[in-house]
């Protein structure tokens, strides 16, 4: 890695660019800054006025799945899937005996070519759900019959779109027409919307099948639990150890994809809820730029920070999901006046030059100070504080040792990932953080989001605070920030955004991150992906990394990941199926969760999104 501003391998910066410039290089950064300022203001005003367009329109009306051919590569982790071994093999990298092992793109391709039927695929997922859902508790509600009926209907119809016949898991804060949508909250326990969220409607229109609604942290806070705080979803990589976090709050969505109970899933991120579970479970999760995906029909948490997005097995799958979910929606003004949705699938298609995967566009990756050190300072303090609250000294020591080993493994994996990126043609540079970074990205400034949710839910707070269950604290705390403090916090957020755009991204095109904020504070895209595994206490657990980008830098992020995943196979690693006796489990997730322990008060505050 080179010092600030100086490339480690200057000759690699001369790589040819493949195709037109990515959207992030054409964006008017000041216009984005202005737009975000207005959005913050709109949060207090209600009805939203959007600014003018951020970019001249671009024609990207290409068939979504066109050009999704992936480089066939060896997989040491899965066995051959017969139909793809023959001439069609060039469209399939994964080689699986069970259709549920196929990636979304592979399954969609096989369906399109008549090698796999939607009913076969849905049934394969339902079979796995029958076997493992009792243990994993990824779902609030499995819509088995409805999914099979939808699959049968799709078999009788021409190709609906890129997701024709693909079963998807939907986080339970997305409205689903005629299906209970609870957000795991007592407030919405009987809520049955009469329309689909825009994102869900788009997924269905593209041929997607809603397989079920996934477990989540109550109202999209914390890891998945019942409203009362009993843990529900477990990490698919440690299904017998509920203390291993599945990541929150889109926990069920991540576990469903990691355990092959669903092809891909939807998540929402206000404070890490797409990227954190993706990192925890070896998945590729993409939190898009604020407004790229409509929030209409999603139970809100913090209007200026809520981002719907996909949780997927790899960059290609995430690209297809985002391609379908993204776009203007008159019902969500945050989506209007934005650059036209580009071709994410093209961006996520690896570029091969001279027989080797290379970056599609010349890209400089910024590395923040301490990134490859075993301890990341901004995490260490909070973690120690949480640990001190535990009463058992032996448990504290065990946790410290586990964390030390984990940090060491993460440091190694990050270093290897950066060297791989350099090999792919990236320029990797150390970056200087903008002024006041530590302050402006601190938990205290992150808390400025809280009054928005308190105000939105005030009616329910007045009715009965017990409706908020284990997640009550942040709603109460949001009522305690004064107007002047809220305003100053909002302006500080704008200052941070300006400095990130002007100072941080003057040094690089994408930047590694170790925490979901500040990128989810300031609406910039963030992608999480696996870069290794760590063996601990007899378990193999994924190690993840995150890259952040400029506004509408999803193309850039996907292109970097496409090259990375064309030359590595961490994204192909799957948690083994739970062995031994697995409770077939059915019925109420709350009763099943009783033996998994509770989220304690400190954990709620630490995990709150």
């Amino acid at each position, binding site marked *: 890695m080179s010092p600030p501003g100086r490339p480690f391998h200057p000759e690699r910066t001369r790589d040819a660019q493949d195709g037109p410039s990515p959207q992030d290089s054409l964006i008017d950064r000041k216009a984005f800054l202005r737009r975000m300022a207005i959005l913050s203001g709109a949060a207090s005003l209600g009805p939203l006025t959007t600014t003018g367009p951020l970019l001249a329109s671009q024609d990207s009306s290409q068939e979504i799945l066109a050009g999704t051919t992936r480089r066939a590569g060896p997989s040491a982790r899965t066995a051959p899937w017969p139909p793809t071994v023959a001439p069609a093999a060039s469209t399939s990298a994964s080689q699986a005996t069970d259709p549920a092992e196929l990636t979304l793109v592979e399954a969609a391709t096989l369906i399109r070519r008549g090698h796999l039927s939607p009913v076969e695929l849905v049934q394969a997922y339902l079979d796995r759900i029958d076997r493992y859902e009792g243990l994993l508790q990824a779902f609030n509600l499995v819509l088995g019959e409805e999914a099979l009926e939808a699959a049968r209907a799709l078999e009788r119809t021409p190709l609906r779109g890129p997701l024709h016949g693909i079963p998807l898991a939907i986080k339970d804060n997305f409205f689903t027409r005629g299906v209970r949508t609870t957000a795991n909250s007592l407030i919405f326990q009987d809520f049955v919307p009469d329309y689909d969220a825009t994102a869900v409607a788009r997924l269905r229109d593209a041929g997607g099948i809603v397989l079920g609604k996934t477990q989540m942290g109550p109202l999209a806070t914390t890891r998945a639990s019942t409203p009362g705080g009993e843990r529900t979803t477990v990490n698919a990589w440690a299904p017998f150890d509920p203390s291993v976090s599945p990541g929150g709050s889109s926990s069920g969505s991540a576990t469903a994809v990691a355990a092959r109970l669903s092809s891909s899933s939807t998540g929402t991120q206000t404070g890490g809820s797409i990227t954190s579970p993706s990192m925890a479970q070896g998945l590729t999760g993409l939190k898009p730029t604020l407004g790229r995906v409509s929030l209409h029909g999603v139970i809100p948490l913090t209007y200026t920070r809520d981002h719907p997005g996909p949780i997927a097995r790899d960059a290609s799958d995430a690209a297809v999901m985002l391609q379908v979910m993204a776009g203007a929606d008159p019902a969500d003004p945050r989506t209007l006046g934005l650059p036209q949705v580009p071709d994410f699938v093209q961006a996520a298609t690896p570029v091969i030059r001279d027989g080797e995967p290379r970056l599609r566009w010349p890209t400089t990756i910024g590395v923040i100070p301490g990134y490859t050190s075993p301890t990341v300072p901004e995490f260490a303090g909070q973690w120690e504080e949480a640990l001190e609250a535990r009463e058992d000294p032996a448990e504290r020591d065990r946790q410290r040792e586990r964390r030390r080993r984990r940090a060491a493994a993460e440091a190694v994996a990050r270093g290897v990932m950066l060297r791989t990126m350099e090999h792919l043609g990236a320029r990797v540079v150390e970056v200087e953080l903008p002024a006041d970074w530590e302050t402006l990205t601190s938990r205290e400034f992150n808390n400025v989001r809280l009054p928005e949710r308190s105000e939105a839910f*005030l009616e329910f707070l007045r009715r009965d605070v017990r409706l908020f269950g284990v997640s009550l604290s942040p709603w109460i*705390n949001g009522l305690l920030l004064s107007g002047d403090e809220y305003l100053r916090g909002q302006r500080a957020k704008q200052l941070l955004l300006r400095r990130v755009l002007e100072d941080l991204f003057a040094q690089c095109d994408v930047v590694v991150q170790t925490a979901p904020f500040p990128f989810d504070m300031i609406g910039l895209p963030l992608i999480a992906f696996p870069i290794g595994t760590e063996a601990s206490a007899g378990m193999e657990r994924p190690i993840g990394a995150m890259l952040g980008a400029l506004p509408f830098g999803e193309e850039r992020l996907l292109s970097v990941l496409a090259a990375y995943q064309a030359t590595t196979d961490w994204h192909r690693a799957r948690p083994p199926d739970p062995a031994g006796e697995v409770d077939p489990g059915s019925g109420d997730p709350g009763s099943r969760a009783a033996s998994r322990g509770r989220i304690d008060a400190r954990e709620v505050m630490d995990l709150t999104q």
Partner: protein
Amino acid sequence: MQDFTDAELDAYILARLRSVGVDLSVLPEDDPEAPADRARILESARRFLRSTPPAIRAFSMEGHEVSPVLFAAPSTAWRRGESS
């Protein structure tokens, strides 16, 4: 807020909540088995008040966006011929 006692902060918190119609008295006083109790909620609120507002107030905005300068004045917009 760092100088206030727990009792003073609790009084402040409860008065503020009462003023907006939020009632914590429906929660158990101190029950670790309950999803939330008054003791935990007040402890969290005290920590919040001792950390977040002071940190925000302590950050100087001088020389930055002290006023909402990004907002275009109507006359500016008219001169540029921008549509409303």
